[in-house]
């Protein structure tokens, strides 16, 4: 299995799906000649040509809408939005059309489109460029929401997204693009949606994360083991919709404690949903209230120290775990 970075794994997924299916085409700002803001599409214009790798004007609402129409008319578009923050300009198209058309049209219309976008802070780009709002998209019935945390997952999940007949919101954490890992080169390598990944087994507490926050959770698990002798299980949700709640519940029934880690704001965020589901299904197994370690409820500040303080850290996770014992 070749080792590669997540951005390269994503590119491999795009390449393979384009080779497999002629109806797949890519659209986005600076994805062609420039190769994408995070270099995911680099080289694809040269390989597939301008009809299949389309540089677009800066027009998020427009290009997502074009994607929807193209999907309705027989193509499988992948629309890249530079960041999740800019996806708000396209929110109407995503929510009022892509997510709802199947239901509203008596099943006549479905929108097989993949919308990729980057999320996450940590680069001092401040509040218009740094948020993680995966949970926002998970809120809308009709959308599938995928948040990979590793190169192999990124590839398997992105390939799977192209085989879906629904709109898939595919969110990539900027801190993950450079991560290295072994990635299967089998062109049929797919990772099913709704299958959480138990990254580390443990018996005392369950740490749940996805995308970027999986890594804080994993580092916290190591610290807990080494410094406190606490055995933490780490679960990577991989997809928020569909949500593999069963894996989480099984784990909580074993460990009796759960901490949810996410970059997104705490108030009204996905961690709240997950916490409620754990409470509904595993209340009797819990030895402590479910804890949430999330981003602070504040627009992302520019200053390095403040930005760091606004994001959840492994120390925050450790602290939350210790408070449960």
């Amino acid at each position, binding site marked *: 299995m070749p080792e590669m970075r997540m951005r390269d794994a994503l590119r491999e997924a795009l390449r393979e799906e384009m080779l497999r299916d002629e109806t797949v085409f890519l659209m986005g700002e600076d994805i062609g000649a*420039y190769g994408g803001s995070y270099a995911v599409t680099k080289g694809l214009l040269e390989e597939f040509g301008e009809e299949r790798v389309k540089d677009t004007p*800066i027009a998020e609402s427009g290009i997502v809408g074009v994607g929807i129409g193209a999907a309705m008319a027989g193509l499988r578009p992948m629309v890249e939005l530079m960041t999740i923050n800019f996806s708000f300009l396209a929110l109407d198209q995503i929510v009022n059309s892509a997510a709802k058309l199947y239901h509203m049209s008596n099943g006549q219309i479905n929108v097989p489109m993949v919308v990729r976008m980057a999320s996450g802070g940590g680069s001092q780009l401040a509040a218009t460029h740094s948020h993680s709002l995966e949970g926002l998209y998970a809120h809308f019935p009709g959308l599938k929401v995928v948040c990979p945390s590793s190169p192999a997952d990124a590839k398997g999940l992105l390939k799977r997204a192209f085989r879906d007949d629904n709109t898939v919101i595919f969110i990539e954490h900027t801190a993950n693009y450079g991560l290295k890992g072994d990635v299967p080169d089998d062109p049929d390598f797919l990772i099913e949606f709704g299958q959480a990944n138990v990254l580390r087994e443990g018996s005392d507490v369950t740490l749940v994360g996805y995308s970027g926050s999986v890594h804080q959770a994993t580092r916290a698990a190591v610290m807990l083991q080494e410094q406190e002798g606490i055995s933490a299980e780490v679960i990577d949700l991989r997809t928020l919709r569909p949500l593999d709640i069963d894996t989480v519940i099984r784990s909580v029934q074993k460990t009796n404690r759960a901490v949810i880690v996410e970059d997104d704001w705490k108030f009204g965020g996905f961690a709240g949903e997950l916490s409620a589901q754990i409470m509904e299904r595993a209340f009797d197994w819990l030895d402590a209230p479910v804890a949430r370690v999330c981003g602070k409820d504040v627009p992302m500040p520019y200053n390095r120290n403040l930005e760091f303080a606004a994001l959840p850290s492994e120390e925050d996770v450790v602290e939350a775990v210790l408070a449960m014992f």
Partner: protein
Amino acid sequence: MDISNDTLLDLHHRMVRIRLFEEEAGKLQESGKVPGALHLYVGEEAVAAGVMSHLSAEDQITSTHRGHGHLVAKGGDLRKMYAELYGRSTGYCKGKGGSMHISDLDLGMLGANGIVGAGPPIAIGAAFSNKYRGTDRVTICFFGDGASNEGTFHEAANMAALFKLPVVFVCENNGFGEFTSQARHQAIKDVADRAAGYGMPGIITDGMDVLAVYEAAGEAIARARRGAGPSLLECKTYRFFDHVGVRGMGVVYREDAEVLEWRKRDPITLFESRLEEMGLLTTEAAAQVRERILFEIREAIAFAEASPFPAEGALMEDIYTVRGAAR
């Protein structure tokens, strides 16, 4: 054109102040002292200077992600600007906004904006307020050729003309949206063409010639002030540096020859020779202007570097205003 010697020298001063501010900011970034993303304005100085020279602090502007030049030209405090780039608590946004989000309400600067195309509707709102309250204030909306493809621009342009608002859309057409040339992002050559579709005049001017900008902006602003409605002024210009940061040459998305061609028409050099011909400026005098500004800049950078970082407790402040609480 009727233009006083003082105004001519002031235009020069504004341009040089922007240039030096940006060059120093670029150096600070390259040396790792200033983080984040800096979208520098070098090459486009004539636009900000030529427009801003008609405005008072009462008049407003909406800016873009490439906003330093606008604020410097409007009289921005260089100390607070550098302090913001450094992420210090003495900065314009207490270190919370950074390069892309600096505003100064006292100067009518409604904000740089990290979201492309966010400015136009905001400018229309400010213009709406100015008309509503019976003032003769004017609002200038700066935007790029790239931003002219966002729906928000079109929605704003339509409303500006429909409501006959005192606003001037100033398009800084530098030929690129990030790394995509204009020819690859729109089928027209002149963004000014779009004005007709909304029922307002569209004017094209040489954005490297500060006097041309000054004159065209003067007319559009006067028109807005007297209640005759909005216009769109397109300034053909060029960014000498990269989309973000300094480099700018030896990049894949444009030819060095093209950069050099535009650099021959450096707005500051062009204007300096004009001023020399007019007997208003000598090489020595120009050097003195630079020295004075560099002095101001060095002092501002020292201020920034000596300023504290925001306190930890500042994180959860400034989310809601308490101003309205008493009402």
